[in-house]
């Protein structure tokens, strides 16, 4: 599928690490051959008509491979969480998954940290690495046993794989489905204090430091948790943090009327925590914004709130939500793509996620002003469980290339 004749995308606003530049970009053999103030060369030319050309999104930590939704959202690669049925805790499963999306979508499987994701026995991580796993994930849960977590981090450090952790103290959370506070109390929902996150982060940071491991917290959603990350970074520890748009767009107010589309893990937090997430995105404490894509049908969502499964279909709305931060002057355009493309690609050491010569030609052409309304019933995803249903937004992908090959949208 990779084209051999060069393609030039002209008349584009190129989003590069050192700013946005008007110019053109040439693709050859699936890679970015050159970019900048180019004259049209040989081969095919694509007129970008002044739209934004950015690296395709690298979605770190999704729960399903849902190509139409990913392509709609400009996502060209995704790291798949091991929380599958059965879990990705064997090399054969990892190997199968790593080939599953090609050629027009690349899946980077995350190896289950423990067998069956049960948090007790470390899985065959080295074999899974060699089968294509780019990282290790604890899954939807925290590993409660500190001894297991330490040995896991030591092993990961030896294999030079990042550990992607879920930060919620399991004992404190119990069967909670909401953050403790006025709104959970009004609705009578089982809730846990937001501090469950900071407690988990504090322990895992200490253990990762001890082990010399690279750790990435997939979702940091509280002011206290972010403060711990900020301090660890300042001290030089190898730590990165992510979040999904839900936690910078919504607070626990969105769970009114028991709307299960707003049932997430970690649960939505207070308005103060939401502001803290926005500040952390602005000051660089948060490195990655991902979709957490987890399409869930009515059998999982049309239930009483506490019985519903957590998760949201986020692939289609990820870019628009991040671009809203640009409109709100929280970040600039290059920083937006650092969050959704460059940083996640760097975490897995794949040569993608940046507009630079020699990098994979995973490209998204974006009309950043195009208005549209998010509609649950009309999504490309396998299920429309979005907490942003009915919300007007702007910014849409108008063309997409994976490895230099154009993808029909």
């Amino acid at each position, binding site marked *: 599928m990779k084209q051999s004749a060069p393609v030039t995308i002209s008349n584009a606003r190129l989003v590069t690490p050192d700013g946005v530049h008007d110019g053109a970009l040439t693709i050859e053999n699936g890679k970015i051959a050159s970019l900048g103030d180019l004259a049209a060369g040989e081969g095919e030319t694509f007129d970008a008509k002044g739209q934004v050309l950015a690296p395709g999104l690298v979605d770190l930590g999704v729960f399903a491979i849902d190509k139409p939704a990913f392509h709609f959202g400009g996502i060209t690669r995704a790291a798949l969480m091991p929380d599958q049925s059965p879990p990705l805790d064997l090399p054969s499963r990892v190997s199968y998954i790593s080939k599953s999306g090609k050629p027009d979508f690349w899946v980077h499987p995350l190896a289950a940290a423990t067998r069956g994701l049960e948090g007790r026995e470390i899985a065959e991580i080295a074999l899974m690495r060699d089968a294509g796993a780019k990282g290790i994930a604890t899954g939807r849960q925290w590993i409660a046993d500190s001894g297991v977590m330490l040995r896991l981090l030591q092993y990961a450090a030896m294999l030079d794989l990042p550990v992607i952790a879920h930060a919620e103290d399991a004992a404190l959370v119990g069967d909670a489905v909401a953050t403790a506070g006025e709104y959970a109390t009004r609705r009578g929902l089982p809730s846990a*204090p937001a501090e469950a996150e900071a407690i988990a982060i504090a322990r895992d940071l200490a253990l990762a430091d001890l082990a010399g491991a690279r750790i990435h917290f997939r979702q940091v959603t509280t002011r206290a948790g972010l403060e711990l990350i900020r301090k660890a970074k300042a001290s030089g520890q190898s730590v990165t943090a992510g979040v999904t748009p839900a936690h910078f767009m919504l607070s626990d107010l969105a769970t009114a009327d028991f709307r299960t589309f707003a049932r997430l893990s970690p649960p939505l937090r207070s308005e103060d925590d939401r502001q803290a997430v926005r500040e952390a995105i602005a000051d660089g404490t948060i490195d990655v914004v991902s979709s957490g894509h987890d399409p869930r049908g009515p059998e999982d969502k049309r239930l*009483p709130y506490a019985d519903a499964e957590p998760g949201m279909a986020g692939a289609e709305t990820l870019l628009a939500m991040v671009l809203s931060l640009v409109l709100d002057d929280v970040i600039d355009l290059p920083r937006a793509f650092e969050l959704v493309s460059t940083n996640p690609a760097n975490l897995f050491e794949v040569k993608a996620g940046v507009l630079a010569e020699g990098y994979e030609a995973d490209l998204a052409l974006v009309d950043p002003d195009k208005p549209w309304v998010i509609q649950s019933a009309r999504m490309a995803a396998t299920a429309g469980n979005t907490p942003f249903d009915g919300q007007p937004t702007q910014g849409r992908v108008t063309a997409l290339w994976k490895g230099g090959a154009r993808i029909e949208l």
Partner: protein
Amino acid sequence: MAMTDTSPHAARYPAGAQAFPHRDLLGIGQLERHEILFLLDEAEQWVELNRQRTKHVDALAGLTIINAFFENSTRTLLSFEIAGKRLGADVVNMHAAQSSVKKGETLIDTAITLNAMRADAIVIRHGSSGATGLIADKVDCPVLNAGDGQHEHPTQALLDALALRHALRERGETANDFTGLTVVICGDILHSRVARSNLLCLQALGATVRLCAPPALMPAGIEAMGAEVFHDFDAALDGADVVMMLRLQTERMSGQFIPSAREYHHLYGLTKTRLAGAKDDTLVMHPGPMNRGVEIDSEVADMIDRSIITRQVEMGVAIRMACLDVLTRRARGVAGWGDAA
């Protein structure tokens, strides 16, 4: 006694359905103060009827009421059943073990099934907060919440208000509401839908509400709902006009919330001595079932001049009759309440 479908307090409320413009009764949180008073006033006629030898009218004759209880209940189910039957309706009870309907589409399917059987009102109790609202969205008839998880139990709060109003009137009080009254609710507030509904209802009627529990049984942020929070029961009782005791809902507890029942009684049990620290005429309430010797001593529960616990049960039937009557008026084509469905 001649019963009519029109309000006996017509002058006090807007005409017809304006007085209670809700299809369902899902929680006190959805009600305005005047709507709560309307239901209480409506219930008075049924209190009177229930004290007659013949306790029956045909107001709801021909209607089918389904009591769908997904969680065990004795007194609430019985109370709703008696209420429906005294109004002349055909009442059917559906017991569904919580375990068999918890997962998958089954709850929605059950709702659709009940709807297809053309119930005229459905009374639901369910172990999950918000479940009754979910069912209400899927059916065409009025839905009454008989308790959903830890969220609301509106008819309990209404019957408590009615029982309290009767007790106060017997003392010569003439006020229609509870302005100036201090009510203590003590017990397992965290797991209690009764506490939440009562907090909303009592406050709407003007009372000051103090909540008392050990920290582990006090929900976070409840001050934001306007409650005064106490951990010391004696301090909470000081100057209280009413004390409402709640039982420990051990069936909802995962993990240990208190060291022992004995220790709980030591700190939070309502004893005669402790009650003496309140006012001379402080009223004692309990939504039942009581755990005598844990949250309340027998000698307090049975005090004739202070305890209104049995009156609460009595008022329960009247309140549920009022709710069933009011919510089915539209379907029955009562003048001013819209066309018959």
